C-alpha cells in the first residue's frame, strides 16, 4: 500500500500536467510515461465515455426522477389513467412521516441491519483468524463451504433456509425438538431466521477478505509477538487490528450497505414482509407501496430516505479513508 501511495504522491507526469494547466514554474520532469501525448487530453474521456453514458442514463437520471416523483402526486390514475400529475411539495413526505408504520419500519431496518453487520463482521473475522491457525486441508474445507454459501443466489438461499426451518418438514425443528413451531409467524423469530440466512451468505466475503489481509501481514511480526508471550487477544488487538484497519473499514461499510438494502431474503422468506407487514424493511416497504398499492410517489419518497441515509454512510466512509492519508 505504501508503495502505491508514494507513487501516487509524486507529481503528475509533466506531459499530462501541461494539459491540465499545472504550474508552469515546475521543471519538466521526465514523465514516468513517455508517450505520444499530443492528444492525450481527449483519450481518458474517450475511454470513459461508454461508462459515463450508461451511468448518466441509468443511474443519475433515475435518481433525479426518483426525487421528482417523490414530490408529485403519482398513483395509478396518473400512470395509466392519463390524469395530469400535480406538484405536492413535501406532501408525500408529510404523509410518510406522519405514518407510524414508516417509523416502525425505519427502526426495524436500522436494528436489523445493525444486527446483521455486527454478527457478519464478528463471525467473518473470527473465522479468518481461525483459517490462519490451521493446516491446508481443513482450511480448504472451510474455504470451499464458505465460497459455496457466498455463491448461492439470495433467492435460492432464502428458499432453502425456509425449508430447513419448515415447521412440518424441516430438519431443524426436528433436531431442536421444537415440534411445529413456525419461525415465520412471530416477528422476532422471523427476523432471526432472515438474519441467519443473511449471515450465512455474507460472512464469506468478510472472512475471505480479512484472511487475505492477515496473510499480507509479515509473519515475523506475529512470530516475534507470540515468542514474547503476547496472548492471542493481544496480538489481534495491538498488531493485527491496526494493520487490518483499511480492510476492516471496507468490509464494514460494504456490509452496512448490503445489509441495509436487504430485499430478496425478506421478500421471499417472510412472504413479502411478514404477517401484517411485521417484517417489513425500507426496501420491501417502498416496493410494496409502489407496486402493490400503486402509490408510486410514496414509494419514491421512501427511496429518497434510503438514498439519504446511505449517502451519509458513504460520506463517513470517505472521511475515514481520507483521514488515513490514502489518496484516490
Amino acid at each position: 500500500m505504501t508503495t502505491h501511495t508514494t507513487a501516487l504522491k509524486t507529481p503528475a507526469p509533466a506531459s499530462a500536467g501541461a494539459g491540465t494547466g499545472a504550474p508552469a514554474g515546475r521543471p519538466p520532469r521526465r514523465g514516468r510515461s513517455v508517450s505520444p501525448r499530443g492528444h492525450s487530453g481527449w483519450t481518458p474521456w474517450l475511454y470513459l465515455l461508454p461508462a459515463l453514458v450508461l451511468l448518466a442514463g441509468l443511474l443519475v437520471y433515475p435518481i433525479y426522477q426518483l426525487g421528482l416523483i417523490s414530490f408529485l402526486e403519482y398513483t395509478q390514475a396518473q400512470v395509466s389513467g392519463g390524469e395530469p400529475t400535480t406538484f405536492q411539495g413535501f406532501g408525500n413526505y408529510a404523509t410518510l412521516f406522519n405514518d407510524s408504520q414508516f417509523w416502525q419500519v425505519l427502526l426495524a431496518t436500522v436494528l436489523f441491519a445493525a444486527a446483521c453487520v455486527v454478527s457478519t463482521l464478528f463471525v467473518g473475522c473470527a473465522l479468518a483468524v481461525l483459517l490462519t491457525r490451521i493446516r491446508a486441508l481443513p482450511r480448504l474445507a472451510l474455504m470451499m463451504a464458505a465460497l459455496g454459501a457466498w455463491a448461492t443466489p439470495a433467492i435460492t438461499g432464502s428458499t432453502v433456509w425456509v425449508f430447513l426451518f419448515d415447521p412440518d418438514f424441516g430438519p431443524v425443528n426436528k433436531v431442536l425438538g421444537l415440534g411445529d413451531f413456525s419461525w415465520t409467524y412471530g416477528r422476532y423469530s422471523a427476523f432471526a431466521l432472515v438474519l441467519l440466512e443473511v449471515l450465512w451468505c455474507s460472512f464469506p466475503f468478510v472472512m475471505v477478505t480479512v484472511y487475505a489481509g492477515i496473510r499480507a501481514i509479515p509473519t515475523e511480526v506475529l512470530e516475534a509477538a507470540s515468542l514474547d508471550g503476547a496472548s492471542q487477544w493481544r496480538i489481534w488487538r495491538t498488531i493485527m487490528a491496526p494493520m487490518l484497519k483499511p480492510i476492516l473499514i471496507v468490509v464494514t461499510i460494504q456490509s452496512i450497505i448490503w445489509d441495509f438494502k436487504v430485499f430478496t431474503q425478506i421478500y421471499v422468506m417472510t412472504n413479502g414482509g411478514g404477517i401484517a407487514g411485521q417484517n417489513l424493511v425500507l426496501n420491501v416497504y417502498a416496493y410494496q407501496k409502489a407496486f402493490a398499492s400503486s402509490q408510486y410517489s410514496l414509494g419514491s419518497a421512501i427511496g429518497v430516505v434510503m438514498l439519504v441515509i446511505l449517502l451519509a454512510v458513504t460520506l463517513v466512509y470517505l472521511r475515514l479513508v481520507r483521514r488515513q492519508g490514502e489518496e484516490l
Partner: protein
Amino acid sequence: MSATTDSAARGGTRGVRTLLRVKRPGRLAAEAAALLIAVAVAFPLYWMVLSAFKPAGEIQSTDPRPWTLAPSLDSFRRVFEQQDFGRYFLNSLLVAGTVVIASALIAFLAATAVTRFRFKFRTTLLIMFLVAQMVPVEALTIPLFFLMRDFGQLNTLGSLILPHLAFSLPFAIWMLRGFVKAVPEALEEAAYIDGASRTRFLWQILFPLVFPGLVATSVFSFITTWNDFLFAKSFIISDTSQSTLPMALLVFFKPDENDWGGIMAASTVMTIPVLVFFVLVQRRLVSGLGGAVKD
C-alpha cells in the same frame, strides 16, 4: 565460546519446540472446529441437493432424514416440464453473460482512464464511482420502471441487461483500478518507445495483463445479475417468455401447499452455474479481493 553459542542455539530451538508442542492440541481443536463449521455452512446446500433428489413421499415426511435410499429425478422432471423452464434458464444465461462481457470491457477502459492518465475531475470521478456503489439500486426500481416503459423496453431482456450493466460498472471500475495500477509504467514506456500505438498497448499488452482481474471482477457482476429478483419481478410483467429463473422458482410456491421438491430442484439448477463459475475463478477472486482492498 562456540560451546556457549551452541547451547544458546539449542536452547532457542527447544524454546520453539515447546511452543509448538503447546500449540498442537490447540491447533487440533481449531481444526476440528473449522471442519465442524465447514459442515454446518455446507449443510443448507447439501440439504437442497438432497431434497431435490428425494422422492415426494420422503420430502413430505414429518421425519426428515439426512439421506435418501431411493433417489429420484421426479422433482427435476417437474421443473423441466414446467412450461418454458429451459427458456427461463437461457434468458438468465443471456442476461448475465451479456452483462459480464460488456461490463468487463467498459470497466477496463474506464479503469485505464482513471489510473493511467491525470486529468481534470479525475478525483471527482473516482469519488462519484465510489458514491455510485452506495446507491440503493432497489430504490431506483420505480423510476427505472417508468424509463423502461417510455422506451418500450418493458417485458424485454434489455430492461434487465441495461440497469445491471450500469450498476455493475462502479464496483468493477473501482476493483480493476488496482489491477491496472499494478502493471508497471515502465512497460508502457517501453511499448511506446518500440513504436506501439496507444490502442495497441491497450488491447495487446494491458488487456492480457489485467485479464485475471477482469475475471475476478466479473464474478460480482455475474452473481448480482444472475441472482436478480427485483428487476425481473418488476420489469417483466406480462410476457413470461422473457422471464428469468427466479420467477420460475416462485411458481412452485403455492398458497396452500408449497411444492418443496420442485423448489429445491429448481434452486439446485439455479445455483449450479454460479457454483461452477465460483470454483473456476476462486483463486483469482481471493487474490483479486486482496489487491482491490489493499490499494
